[in-house]
């Protein structure tokens, strides 16, 4: 069992938005300067707290998208139509604005480059964010572990980090990415075009004899379906770590 780390008190700190990157029509990344950042592990998240002038506060958790090796902390946020915090972070925030956050938080849904097992990452929608931190960490650390990502999105326009993933795959034989687009596929599409199912998992996942490390992240229904399929295919549940995102809050 992983050792629980004794940590300092979790305190709120102010970061400054250094860069904004629009990833898809509804998703942006915020690259944040945090002078007192203690460092983080791939898969961890932060809590972001917004305060209005009359003192009203709203708080949400967002996964860290950047590798531990990166000089700044990047959050990737999907703007939810009826959200309270996400429409502020994706739409109102400008470069130079300050954002209050605390972290890093989490110890269960974490991958370290020292883990040499084949790595299987399964992402539904914005569930790609903490898995991207793992992929970026894998690249920055020069990890020899082979990686397979199965990434489900609604359409090609919704695929976050599309170009970066394509470049990683082109440049590194150890990284393979299988996309599935569940609602619409562009003409000439040669990836999957349906919701994940047993056949897709059987084709993409590592054979069970490889004893992989598995991380599944996305909306609750997606995570439960995906991990159920993996266990049905013969995976040991102990290999699989999951993180459910709510569609609420945001």
């Amino acid at each position, binding site marked *: 069992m992983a050792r*629980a780390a*004794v940590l300092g008190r*979790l305190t709120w700190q102010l970061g400054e938005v250094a860069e904004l990157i629009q990833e898809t029509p509804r998703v942006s990344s915020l690259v944040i300067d945090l002078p007192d950042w203690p460092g983080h592990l791939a898969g961890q998240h932060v809590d972001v707290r917004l305060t209005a002038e009359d003192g009203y506060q709203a708080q949400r958790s967002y996964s860290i998208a950047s590798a531990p090796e990166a000089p700044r902390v990047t959050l990737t946020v999907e703007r939810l139509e009826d959200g309270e915090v996400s429409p502020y972070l994706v739409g109102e925030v400008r470069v130079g604005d300050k954002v209050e956050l605390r972290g890093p*938080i989490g*110890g269960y849904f974490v991958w370290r480059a020292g883990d040499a097992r084949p790595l299987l990452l399964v992402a539904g929608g914005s569930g790609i964010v903490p898995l991207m931190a793992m992929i970026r960490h894998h690249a920055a650390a020069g990890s020899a572990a082979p990686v397979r990502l199965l990434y489900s999105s609604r359409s090609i326009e919704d695929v976050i980090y599309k170009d970066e993933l394509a470049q990683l795959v082109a440049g590194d034989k150890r990284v393979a990415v299988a996309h599935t687009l569940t609602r619409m596929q562009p003409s000439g599409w040669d990836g999957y075009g349906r919701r994940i199912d047993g056949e897709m998992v059987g084709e993409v996942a590592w054979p069970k004899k490889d004893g992989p490390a598995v991380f599944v992240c996305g909306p609750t229904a997606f995570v*439960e379906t995906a991990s159920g399929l993996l266990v049905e295919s013969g995976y040991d549940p102990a290999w699989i770590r999951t*993180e459910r995102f709510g*569609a*609420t809050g945001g």
Partner: protein
Amino acid sequence: MQQSDLKLDGNAIAGLLREIFTMEMTNAESTCAGCGTVHAVGAVDVYLNAPGAVVRCPACEQVLMRIVHGGGRYWIDLTGTRCLEFRGDPG
């Protein structure tokens, strides 16, 4: 939004647990006082859309923990958790 999306997991209360415990708790293993199964706190069912956090056993759905934070106070009920096991620092 699907109804099931209201159910999260222990990762969603990692920050709240850090406010209460001195250690990162999502790797702690909890034994359900109801059915006896053991799960990592990161893998238990968590309902946050409520006046407090309600943590339930994924196997039997019984309440493992209730946590309320308000008015400057915390109330935590662990009676549904027979025990929590985690490693600390050696010596």
